[in-house]
């Protein structure tokens, strides 16, 4: 059997990115994927004849442009089409729409509150300021504050410097931003419920926290710091679905000479004489390699595919306590035609963007209370899109595909497993909510794939169905991600690394963890750094 220099476990976007950089440096690399298809949660699948679903991740923005350029993803077929719009429907039949055009945006906000229209500019400036601060750190290894190593001290000093440049009050404002709840943060600017709800939803996406939980203002940022063609904060669809991102990365891996092996279910990472020596597959085969990189979440990496005897006890403890509770589900729906929404003309540009039906922070918070109580939200928060308006390749002519991200859905129902009846109840609560604003929606449904955390875990292998491979709470960010002492992509055994979203800077199809991990591996091998580390200045 061929001996590889490095094996990457899991062909998600981070695993592929990591492999591409290792291969680019001349290492022989194999990516092992359990499923018969690649992509992990960055995947497109035809689950109903004629319709392609981005059935896990569904929109693109955070993918670091430095990586896309460096790995020549456009040349390998990735095309990201920006979309605008976005609307929150109100219970009273009105809506709040989001426009790119500045004047139109002002008029729309002013329609709900003149005061808010005037505050909006200040809000946008302040969030942008925080975005600008964090972006340079996405493609960098987080420094370890407990370390006395020169590199850590230098990084920490650099980190401190960029913060002190903000000035005393600016720094305090930043610290407050990081520790505040998105609800409190928005209350500082806005008075209109629907505007707060429209903006606030992004602060809790993928997180088992409510809009009033401290630390969610930061998650808000997570959804603002991406860019499309240098346009910071904008979002797009990968043409052909999110699987196109994985496909382009895979082509890049292959172009550099790497192998991608599907249907290869890893049983464990083999450690001999205190060093990694390869991986053992479930079918009994063993692939030798001096470097093994896990793209699985930290829980699976340490508790499932590593032998406890090979790990320090405190690490097993930390992995066991790592917070990776799922909080969301997904509906992918094949539609016979474009549904109509109350109050919106079907040519309205707002139709092209995210649609929400939660018009107050209170409703968002109550949805979270259901999660805490161990059940799905009866009045869920949904982030719904109809990408086929922008990308006709995903459904037959005249037909449409709808992707509905749903929050909250707990990993377990009242302590027990999800049953099919639970899933049906979950599905119904979402469909009813949409149908309340779209009279013809139910009659257009041809097929609906409903994914609760149970299905997400079973298919993609994300523990408890957590889409970020670990909650983005502030005790699990930066040097604490995934846990203190292991935030620099290295595992406890020489030759073992982590490259998934469970590491800094987290999930959202950024590809940054995969790239950062590759940089650390190359450094350990004393190979030249080929991973872009800077950032596109905005």
């Amino acid at each position: 059997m061929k001996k590889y220099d490095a094996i990457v476990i899991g062909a998600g976007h981070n695993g592929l990115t990591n492999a591409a950089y290792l291969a680019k440096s001349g290492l022989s690399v194999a990516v092992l994927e359990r499923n018969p298809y690649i992509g992990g949660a960055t995947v497109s699948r035809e689950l109903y004849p004629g319709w392609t679903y981005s059935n896990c991740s569904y929109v693109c923005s955070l993918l670091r442009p430095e990586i896309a350029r460096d790995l020549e993803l456009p040349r390998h077929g990735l095309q990201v089409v920006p979309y605008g719009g976005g609307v929150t429907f109100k219970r009273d039949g009105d809506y709040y729409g989001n426009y790119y055009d500045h004047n139109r945006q002002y008029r729309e906000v002013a329609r709900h509150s003149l005061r808010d229209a005037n505050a909006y500019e200040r809000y946008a400036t302040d969030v942008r300021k925080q975005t600008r601060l964090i972006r340079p750190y996405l493609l960098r290894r987080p420094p370890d504050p407990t370390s006395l190593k020169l590199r850590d001290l230098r990084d920490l000093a650099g980190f401190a410097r960029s913060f002190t440049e903000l000035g005393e009050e600016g720094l305090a404002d930043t610290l407050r931003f990081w520790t505040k709840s998105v609800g409190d943060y928005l209350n500082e600017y806005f008075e209109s419920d629907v505007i707060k709800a429209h903006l606030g939803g992004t602060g809790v996406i993928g997180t088992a926290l409510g809009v009033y939980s401290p630390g969610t203002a930061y998650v808000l940022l997570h959804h603002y710091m991406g860019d499309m063609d240098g346009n910071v904060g904008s979002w797009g669809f990968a043409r052909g679905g999110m699987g196109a991102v994985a496909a382009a990365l895979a082509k890049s891996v292959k172009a550099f000479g790497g192998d991608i092996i599907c249907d290869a279910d890893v049983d464990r990472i083999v450690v001999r004489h205190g060093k990694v020596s390869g991986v053992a597959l479930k079918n009994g085969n063993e692939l030798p390699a001096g470097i093994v990189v896990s793209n699985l979440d930290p829980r699976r990496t340490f508790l499932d595919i590593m032998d406890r005897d090979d790990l320090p006890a405190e690490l097993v403890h930390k992995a066991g306590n790592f917070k990776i509770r799922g909080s969301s589900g997904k509906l992918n729906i094949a539609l016979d035609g474009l549904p109509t929404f109350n109050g919106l003309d079907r040519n309205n540009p707002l139709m092209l963007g995210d649609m929400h039906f939660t018009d107050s922070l209170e409703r968002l918070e109550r949805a979270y209370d259901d999660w805490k109580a161990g059940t799905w939200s009866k009045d869920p928060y949904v982030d719904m899109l109809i990408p086929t308006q922008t990308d006709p390749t995903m459904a037959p002519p005249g037909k449409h595909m709808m992707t509905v991200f749903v929050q909250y859905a707990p990993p377990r129902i009242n302590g027990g497993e999800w049953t099919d009846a639970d899933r049906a109840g979950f599905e119904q609560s979402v469909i009813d909510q949409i149908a309340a604003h779209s009279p013809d929606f139910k009659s257009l449904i041809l097929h609906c794939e409903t994914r609760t955390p149970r299905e997400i875990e079973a298919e993609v292998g994300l523990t408890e169905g957590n889409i970020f491979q670990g909650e983005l709470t502030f005790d699990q960010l930066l040097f604490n991600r995934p846990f203190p002492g292991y935030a620099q992509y290295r595992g406890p055994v020489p030759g073992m690394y982590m490259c998934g979203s469970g590491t800094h800077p987290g999930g959202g199809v950024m590809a940054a963890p995969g790239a950062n991990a590759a940089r650390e591996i190359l450094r350990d091998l004393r190979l030249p750094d080929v991973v872009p580390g800077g950032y596109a200045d905005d």
Partner: protein
Amino acid sequence: MTERHDVIVVGAGHNGLVCASYLARAGRKVLVVEAGDSPGGAAATREFAPGYSVSGCAQWVYQLHPGVSRDLELERHGLQWAARDLASVLLDSRGCHLTLSGALIESDQLSGDDREAWRAFHDRTGRYARLLARVFESRPPKLVESNLADRLTLLRLGLGLKLLGRDDMSDLMRIVLTNMYDLMEEYFDSPQLKAVLSFDSVLGARMGPRTPGTVFGYLYRRLGENFGYNGVAQVKGGMGALGQAMAASARVRGVELRLGCRVSSIDSVDGRAAGVTLASGEQLRAALVVSSADPVTTFKGLVGFRHMETGMARRVSQVRCEGIAARLHLALDGLPRFTGLDGARLGQRLVIAPDMNYLERAFNAVKYREYSPHPALDISIPTVNDPAGAPAGCHVLSAIVQFAPYGPPGGWDGPSAVAGLSHREHFTALVLDKIAEYAPGIKEQVVASQLLTPVDLERDYGMTGGHWHHLELSLDQVMMMRPFPGATQYASGLDGLYLCGAGAHPGGGVMGLAGKNAAREILRRGAAA
């Protein structure tokens, strides 16, 4: 126009008195102006029914700084303890209570694993609380425009962190950001132990155990250990006696105390605080004004937004200070009987919060301006340790009740969901029902009751929002963010005006450090000028 003072302190709450005493000790001529008829502010004793009196707002002392109490010679000025180092008893409706006394736990139901985990947890968090205590003893450092004193504070903090060792340091930096619920799940199995610890973490805070940052609240409660308290303590004569002792100490040091004078404005001349105007119209002049009132009252009420820069005024209106804790005082015609609780433990701190999810659900209500249908309680029966508070043979039960919103729809006297009952009456009935689950028969013993909602606490003690820490003690409002950026280090943005109340670093809890730190800062700046 009366004689001129060096400093006027607004409010004779404990921090105001502490600050005044320190300033007077350093030779300043200090006047304290208090709206109420007795000193102490939130630390005052009130008669709530004929013959029954109780500490109106704060009920326990658990972190009064020993330096403050030594410097003010409080014991010489009449401070006596009715009881010290009281245990916390987590009540169980069947009588299987859990008693937590410092590091010791008494419970029939605790596993060996839990006991071992508790020892590890207690030691570890004790080390963190010690570090925090040191940070709280000085002014909050500035990080950017730091001077030598700030750098020394930061250096001490950094060194303290390093000295914890690598494991503790990284653990602290993680858990201080996390929530109590998850941390408890990491350590313990016993629902009772998890509940009593998480109750402490959310006491007085608009937070549930699942709220990130609650571990900080818990560490804050643990500060007392470093100040000589191994559990809560009860002042003889109620908290008012502490206020009286502080006032006596201040007077001996030459502080002039004027009670019953409400300050209606803090006046400035040429952009500098120059004195105060009383409600009577009398104007008092001084070189410096120090406010122990909460920041919103100080800036919005007394200084006035029109005398402030808009950015600053906006910050004042954005601070979070809505209280969520109510106080219930019950006058009882006899000693209440709690199921399975012997008489000796009646004088201790009794907690009703059966498990963390109960606590979390209780918290849910207040997010929507509702009161908890099943509230959590911190109960004291002060007359067990100090019978003077009630007629012979009678008793007072006084409880902190969480969670109660500042304003339920229609106000506290508006109609509740139950026909014929106001919100106030309905909530009182709910709380009584809850206590009766643990002390059957208590309802028949009630002679009189008084419910103080956050609105009442705001009115009676002048605390905006009725929050006993003045400002929410959440991570975004502590240290150099307290009370808000631009008004840290006890200075206020208005020359000559300082803050010394719980709204300033390090916060409330009858600690006295805000007053002490403020005095030190005022004297330091005075020396520089």
